[in-house]
């Protein structure tokens, strides 16, 4: 009885923390429609800030608390709303969610930078450390009482704010109908800002309380939010009382499980599998169940109309791209140092995992936060199955994981949008807590995945593995293109664009989603199975999946090129870390930073780059010029006139800065043509003429140099040629009078007259 009371108190105080976090989630979701995955990270950052003020700089606790919770947190929330979230009105759920993932990655990076994991820090003390009072014969620490008290106070304050104040009424009005509120003179933006401010403070409070309860570490504090997801979902993302109830139940469940798991009768294993991870997975299990208990999501009409648009990939372009990729990799792999080869190899592995999101997220619009989980399962299957990594083993491993993916996804498929994303998050955490810690999977912490064995080919060097990875990516990419061009591909896109229309036309949404999940799981499994190295379960954790999802969307999840771009960007991130320590820290916040700007370019970077090449591709003569130039630069390298690095720098400048400008150059007025041409030539001479392998000492610096050169000369030349006056652009009436009709003129005229769209 005594013990039960003890654990009840522990449970309620844990539940109190969950309640505070979850209420913050609910407040922002209801007022801005954005489910803030970074909510826990805000709490983490706030706990570290408090530690800094209170224990490192020795401010008195009340002052430190005040600064953290009532100044910095609200400020952070407001800035986030104003500069990041506000631009997201009218974007898709995938983009909205990705931006919070970006924020999440940004904050983790920031915390890692300012408070490195390895530094020893003074202890984070509980409030009134060591003090306790006796309740019913049991000692309860003041910290627990304060925690519990905080939850009660938060509940009361939220109730008063929402129901008794003007702002609260406005907040509830925004929840009901944002547009109507605006028409009636309400200011939804300001209301959202206020909500984000409150929410950040709530996260901050929870973070500080939790850090005292457990310890000051990034990971557990961040994952706190997953536990809060469960409570928020129990509250159906709108009811605060239900959220508090859910949080309480969650806390109690955890405490009671802890209580009974020590008993001798409690099983430590089931069917030969260890149950040690179950406790830490409890909140996610509850989350999963709570999600499944949701009523079937209704088919809605008039949901966000999508801004993104992706063309159906042409076979010709796809095959040319695949061949070019492999040729380029074969070409440059001979020039790379071993460490750079491994980095690029890593990039390709990421690219394959990212590719797994193209059919699922890009085509079908279904968000998965668990791509690496399937990669992990693929790696396990490849290492455990007989055959020592031959092709049959690979195919079987992919098939098994695809089937597992489909089966596991099955119950979650009646969900959509954010609920589906959360279910995949829950799945990812459950698998890493319960499956990856088994003796049967990652027995000693890591396993060796055999290198793929192909008849008559030996793959034993990093270079060979890199080429293999590029070939595999090319093949998988072509498969994805084939999917998009197929009947299934059209169904996937239909599912994304209008589930309601798709269903009323006779499409089983569940079956289509199932296919998307199976394909996606299969591709991710392939990436995992091709690891060809020692792998550890940490590589496949939920938090590692988030940057992949993020960069997939940044690169452009609607296309294979976008996946390649995103994956290489993620792999290349560690290249930048070679420069100097400060820049190394910058790279930690890199992925997050690029993602935060996503709202402005929802189609992804690859689409943007692709667009700049479109005029070039339409002119075979100029493609030939471009190819000849690239070959010329390669010839300079092959004859040892320039170094490998100079070749690389010059090639990138040629391909990214010169080639896209060729069509505009040929069309520009002579004076401008000469100017722009000269400018580009200077750029090329600098790129090829300087021996960058000695001029700069780190790969990262050279990458930055390349980006700088491309930007300086490419954009510079573009500015020059685009300023040239084009006679016919002013009025279609003039076209044909002073010059002959060009194709452009005809198109323009047709547009103006309205004969085509």
């Amino acid at each position, binding site marked *: 009885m005594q013990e039960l009371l003890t654990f009840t108190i522990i449970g309620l105080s844990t539940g109190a923390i969950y309640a505070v976090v979850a209420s913050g989630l609910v407040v922002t979701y209801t007022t801005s429609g954005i489910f803030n995955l970074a909510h826990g990270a805000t709490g983490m950052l706030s706990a570290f800030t408090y530690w800094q003020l209170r224990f490192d700089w020795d401010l008195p606790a009340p002052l430190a608390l005040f600064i953290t919770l009532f100044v910095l947190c609200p400020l952070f929330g407001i800035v986030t709303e104003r500069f990041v979230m506000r631009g997201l009105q009218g974007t898709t759920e995938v983009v909205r969610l990705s931006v919070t993932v970006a924020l999440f990655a940004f904050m983790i990076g920031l915390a890692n930078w300012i408070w490195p994991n390895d530094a020893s820090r003074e202890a984070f003390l509980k409030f009134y450390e060591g003090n306790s009072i006796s309740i019913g014969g049991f000692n309860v620490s003041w910290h627990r009482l304060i925690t519990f008290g905080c939850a009660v106070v938060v509940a009361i304050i939220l109730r008063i704010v929402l129901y008794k104040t003007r702002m609260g009424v406005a907040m509830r009005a925004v929840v009901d109908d944002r547009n109507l509120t605006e028409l009636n003179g309400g200011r939804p933006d300001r209301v959202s800002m206020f909500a984000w401010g409150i929410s950040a403070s709530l996260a901050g409070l929870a973070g500080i309380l939790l850090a005292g309860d457990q310890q000051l570490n990034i990971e557990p504090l961040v994952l706190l939010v997953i536990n809060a997801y469960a409570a928020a979902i129990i509250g159906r993302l709108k009811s605060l009382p239900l959220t508090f109830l859910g949080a309480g139940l969650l806390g109690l469940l955890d405490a009671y499980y802890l209580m009974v798991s020590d008993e001798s009768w409690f099983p430590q294993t089931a069917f030969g599998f260890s149950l040690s991870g179950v406790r830490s997975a409890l909140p996610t299990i509850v989350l999963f169940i709570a999600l499944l208990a949701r009523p079937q999501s209704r088919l809605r009409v008039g949901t966000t109309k999508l801004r993104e648009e992706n063309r159906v990939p042409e076979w010709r372009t796809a095959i040319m791209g695949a061949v070019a990729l492999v040729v380029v990799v074969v070409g440059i792999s001979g020039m790379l140092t071993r460490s750079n080869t491994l980095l690029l190899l890593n990039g390709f592995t990421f690219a394959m995992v990212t590719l797994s999101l193209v059919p699922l997220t890009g085509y079908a619009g279904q968000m998965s936060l668990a791509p690496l989980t399937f990669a992990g399962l693929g790696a396990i299957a490849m290492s455990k199955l007989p055959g020592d990594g031959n092709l049959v083993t690979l195919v079987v491993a992919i098939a098994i994981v695809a089937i597992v993916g489909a089966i596991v996804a099955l119950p979650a498929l009646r969900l959509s949008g954010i609920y589906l994303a959360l279910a995949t998050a829950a799945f990812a955490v459950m698998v890493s807590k319960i499956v990856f810690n088994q003796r049967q999977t990652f027995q000693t912490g890591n396993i060796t995945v055999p290198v793929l064995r192909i008849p008559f080919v030996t793959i034993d060097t990093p270079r060979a593995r890199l080429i293999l990875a590029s070939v595999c990516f090319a093949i998988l990419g072509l498969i994805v293109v084939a999917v998009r061009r197929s009947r299934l591909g059209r169904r996937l*896109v*239909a599912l994304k*664009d209008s589930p309601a*229309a798709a269903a*009323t036309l*006779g499409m089983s949404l569940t079956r289509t989603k199932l296919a998307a999940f199976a394909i996606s799981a299969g591709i991710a499994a392939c990436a995992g199975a091709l690891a060809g190295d020692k792998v550890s379960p940490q590589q496949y954790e939920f938090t590692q999946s988030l940057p992949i999802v993020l960069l997939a969307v940044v690169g452009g999840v609607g296309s294979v090129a976008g996946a390649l771009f995103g994956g290489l960007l993620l792999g290349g991130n560690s290249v930048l870390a070679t420069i100097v320590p400060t820049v190394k820290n910058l790279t930690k916040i890199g992925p997050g930073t690029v993602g935060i700007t996503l709202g402005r370019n929802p189609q992804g970077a690859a689409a943007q780059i692709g667009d700049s090449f479109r005029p070039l591709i339409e002119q075979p003569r100029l493609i030939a010029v471009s190819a000849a130039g690239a070959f010329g630069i390669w010839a300079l390298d092959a004859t040892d006139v320039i170094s490998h690095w100079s070749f690389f720098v010059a090639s990138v400048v040629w391909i990214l800065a010169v080639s896209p400008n060729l069509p505009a150059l040929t069309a520009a007025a002579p004076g401008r043509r000469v100017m722009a041409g000269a400018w580009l030539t200077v750029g090329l001479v600098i790129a090829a003429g300087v021996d960058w392998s000695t001029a700069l000492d780190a790969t990262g610096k050279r990458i930055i140099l390349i980006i700088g050169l491309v930007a300086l000369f490419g954009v510079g030349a573009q500015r020059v040629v685009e300023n040239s006056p084009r006679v016919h652009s002013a009025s279609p009436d003039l076209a044909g009078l002073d010059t002959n009709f060009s194709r452009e003129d005809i198109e323009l005229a047709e547009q103006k007259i309205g004969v085509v769209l």
Partner: protein
Amino acid sequence: MSLLEVRGVMVRFGGVMAVGGVDLDAEVGQVTGLIGPNGAGKTTLFNVISGMQEPTAGQVFVSGVDITREAPHRRAKRGLARTFQRLELFSSLTVRDNVRVAAELAAVPDVDGTVDTLLDKVGLSHLAASAAGDLPTGSARLVEIARALATMPRLLLLDEPASGLDDSETERLGGLLRELAADGLGVLLVEHDMDLVMHVCDRIHVLDLGNIIAIGTPNEIQHDDAVLQAYLGTS
């Protein structure tokens, strides 16, 4: 036995009775009109028939089979197809692929031929390669109709197909509807354009505040006191 029989369908949203015990029939080879002032419950009734909204009470039969609890995609297999008042095109697909998806879902024998015929029928062949998201409303509505027809339906539910169409397009639509009915298709039409409704419908149901207040031929409806009152508010 009618093609579509709606019996006592009631939909309640919280305290609001959106549809209150409606009976409605649509016949093979006829255009059945469903009119009524804004908020009368027309779209809600459409949602119940197409399976997007579960009714609080009542039943829906297609050719005598009770489909009240069936999922939308199963109803499509029974020959139900609909368009949407707020457009629901697959905006990132081309016009052609919009129609093609539907034809493929219905497993028609000659997908390409069917798509060509339908695009021609609604007069959109020249736009086949455009992205559906770029179309003006009028053309988009026609794509929705072509897409619904591609599932080879027996009953076509049209939710305000003429809104956004200009006069000549509307006239063409009217002709198309008559043609479809002549081919043996049942059409249930929700529309505000009274000219069109009166011209193409065989029978008209008038819905007001969730209840059917009149049923009859266009001529009867035009002279019905209850209808005039609902529309004009005269007493």
